[in-house]
């Protein structure tokens, strides 16, 4: 039995078995030649000569194999932890979830150095270089680009300076070249030349993350794509599609370097709030400040323009409206002065209602935007206010993308806004609705159209609200003007099959006049007033 065979058996079967299988090992220690640095008969190792044994080969997960003074292998530096290489967790693609151990083909020297000899740069190659493993790394930004992508080419030459500014904080940038000039999968050779073209000294690889990492429904697969990973725990810190100023990326990466993502219990929104031109924090942070206070609120605030759209780098002011009862009616008006560049946009969200939101203004108006809502369900509501200038697929506006000197409140640009939230008395503002006579009209800003309808006891009526342009997601609500309560409401007739018109069927138990409230759930923000058709049968 050779030394290696014997030791293999030992490490496989356990120490006791090893002693049985290799009985002479302890009784006849190889003392005579031990220490000469050469492997002699009876020795498992000698000094630095480990007979090619590693902790991994010896059944451990990681660590440094050593040789004891008795020329027996010393495994005390080995680590038995299957999660040492990579976090043991269910992988996901949503922000805050642990990303899978993605791998890419190394395309330059910096990537090859990290790859550990197999020419594949895996995320675990980076994880084992984080601070907990004795390395310098804290955060990662993968910049996914393509040779054909003009916006990628705009941003790519700015990354070296960004990397130089951040690398001492433990931030690594990896240039992931997904496609070549003709849209085909990039080879490592193409990726290398692409990186050289833009002076990338940081690791460059070819490949692309799965489409699942792109925000769903928003330009999936579009380039450039930025994927931020907290290398402390391999959680997805954020992602964004589209070109962006390095200044904004730096804000995100500074935050990533400074704060482990596990401090956050979910998706993180970076707060850019500041006093214009000063860089100071915004003085009026509304979060949770007015819960329970009675309406109205008159507020003013400061917003930085959005440059990207998903999960991070959105400057939003969240106003906690507290609990609103079903049947409550609120009016929101957001405006700005002529000096401000902020583009008023807001949405109403129900706290804890994942994905639930109703768009605020439906009309593009750079000066002011308003909307009225009838609250259909008692609950805790939030109003999210942000700058709607066009800079991504999510936002709308007709005054152009913010220039670099307008971003992050630097350069003296004014980003203030005013917000007024008040309750009001719902009132009929249309003539009575008649069976079989369709009603059409526009839905202007701050517009709820309220139709009285006299219903007879036990007669079933079907109300249907449609839109003539497909721009509007109509929303229909029946309101009891005496009890000030919501009788019923509907957003979509058939969401699954794309019928976003609204329909309600109702039969009162007694003769009753109700108000049929015409509104919308969401819509394409646009410059012309959308119209509706309301029928009752």
């Amino acid at each position, binding site marked *: 039995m050779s030394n290696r065979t014997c030791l293999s058996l030992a490490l496989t079967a356990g120490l006791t078995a090893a002693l049985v299988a290799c009985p002479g090992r302890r009784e006849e220690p190889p003392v005579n030649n031990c220490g000469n640095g050469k492997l002699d008969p009876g020795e498992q190792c000698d000094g630095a000569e480990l007979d090619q044994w590693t902790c991994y080969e010896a059944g451990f997960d990681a660590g440094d194999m050593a040789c004891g003074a008795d020329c027996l292998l010393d495994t005390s530096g080995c680590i038995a932890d299957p999660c040492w290489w990579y976090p043991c967790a269910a992988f996901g693609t949503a922000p805050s979830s642990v990303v899978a151990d993605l791998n890419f083909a190394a395309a330059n020297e910096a990537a090859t150095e990290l790859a550990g000899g197999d020419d594949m740069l895996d995320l675990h190659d980076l994880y084992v270089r984080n601070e907990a493993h004795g390395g310098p790394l804290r955060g990662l930004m993968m910049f996914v680009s393509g040779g054909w992508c003009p*916006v990628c080419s705009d941003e790519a030459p700015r990354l070296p300076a960004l990397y130089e500014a951040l690398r001492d904080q433990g931030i690594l940038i990896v240039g992931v070249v997904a496609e070549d000039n003709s849209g085909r999968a990039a080879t490592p050779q193409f990726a290398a030349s692409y990186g050289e073209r833009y002076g990338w000294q940081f690791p460059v690889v070819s490949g692309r993350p799965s489409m699942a990492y792109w925000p769903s429904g928003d330009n999936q697969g579009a380039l450039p794509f930025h994927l931020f990973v907290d290398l402390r725990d391999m959680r997805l810190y954020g992602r964004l599609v589209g070109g962006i100023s390095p200044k904004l990326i730096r804000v995100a990466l500074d935050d990533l370097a400074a704060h482990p993502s596990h401090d956050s219990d979910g998706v993180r929104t970076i707060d850019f709030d500041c006093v214009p031109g000063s860089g100071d924090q915004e003085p009026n942070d509304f979060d949770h400040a007015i819960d329970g206070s009675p309406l109205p609120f008159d507020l003013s605030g400061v917003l930085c323009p959005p440059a990207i759209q998903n999960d991070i780098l959105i400057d939003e002011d969240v106003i906690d409206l507290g609990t609103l009862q079903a049947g409550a009616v609120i009016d929101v008006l957001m405006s700005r002065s002529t000096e401000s560049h902020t583009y008023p946009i807001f949405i109403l969200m129900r706290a804890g209602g994942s994905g639930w939101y109703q768009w605020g203004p439906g009309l593009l108006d750079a000066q002011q935007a308003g909307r009225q809502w009838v609250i259909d369900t008692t609950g805790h509501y939030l109003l999210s206010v942000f700058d709607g200038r066009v*800079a991504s*697929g999510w936002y709308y506006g007709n005054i152009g993308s913010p220039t670099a000197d307008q971003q992050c409140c630097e350069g003296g640009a004014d980003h203030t806004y005013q917000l007024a939230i008040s309750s009001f008395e719902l009132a009929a503002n249309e003539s009575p609705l008649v069976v079989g006579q369709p009603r059409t009209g526009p839905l202007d800003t701050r517009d709820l159209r309220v139709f009285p309808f006299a219903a007879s006891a036990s007669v079933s009526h079907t109300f249907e609200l449609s839109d003539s*342009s497909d721009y509007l997601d109509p929303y229909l609500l029946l309101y009891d003007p005496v009890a000030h309560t919501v009788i019923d409401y509907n957003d979509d007739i058939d969401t699954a099959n794309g019928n976003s018109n609204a329909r309600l069927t109702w039969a009162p138990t007694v003769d009753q006049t109700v108000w049929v409230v015409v509104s919308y759930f969401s819509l394409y923000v646009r410059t012309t007033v959308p119209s509706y058709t309301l029928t009752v049968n």
Partner: protein
Amino acid sequence: MRSVSVVISALFLAACPTPPDTGSDAAQPAVDAGGPQYEPLSADESAGLAAALPTATQKTTRAIPESLLSSDDVALENDSFFEILDATGVLLGYGRDVFTPIECTSGACQAIRFVLVFDGAVEFVAVFHPASDSHDWKKYWQGEYLTFDDADRARLREILLHPPADLIAVTSIDDLVTSATSTAPTQIEYQDDVVRGAAFTTYIVLQYMLDSQQTIRQVIA
């Protein structure tokens, strides 16, 4: 009635391909290294041509002179077209594989790939997306991007067969939508001219169809 005549003419073109251009040596089998290089159609091409040119089996690639190309097409390597032939070497038509960014107006770039197919008289007959390629055609509908379905593909082909004059006249893609984002609604006046929710794609494919038709005619003249 109009649509019926369109279908009939398309079938006629498919069944009775135009005789090969005798000025080209494409109809001759490759016998020496100096002649055109014939290669079998890829699986994607065979599938894409099955309806329009069902007897197509091989192709030979021809370069487009740089003087006929835009700088973008040079960079994107849209610098060739191919002659489509049957098994006996008879020219059936022409194809052009195009890859192009579809829009970057919102700061994020999407691209599409498509193959334009013309008959022997360089009249448009079909357009298809190579199934194995990831740059499929998308539309923005009900708040999300969706891949074209069969009806959308048929609608696109119909538009290319009968290009709307007002769509041809559009000079800027931004004029098609109500604001400069990829999710902005199509202007009402163009809604009937485009695949619903895919104004940019429709416009760009149409422009490439017209450009390719002219280019191929110039090259083979």
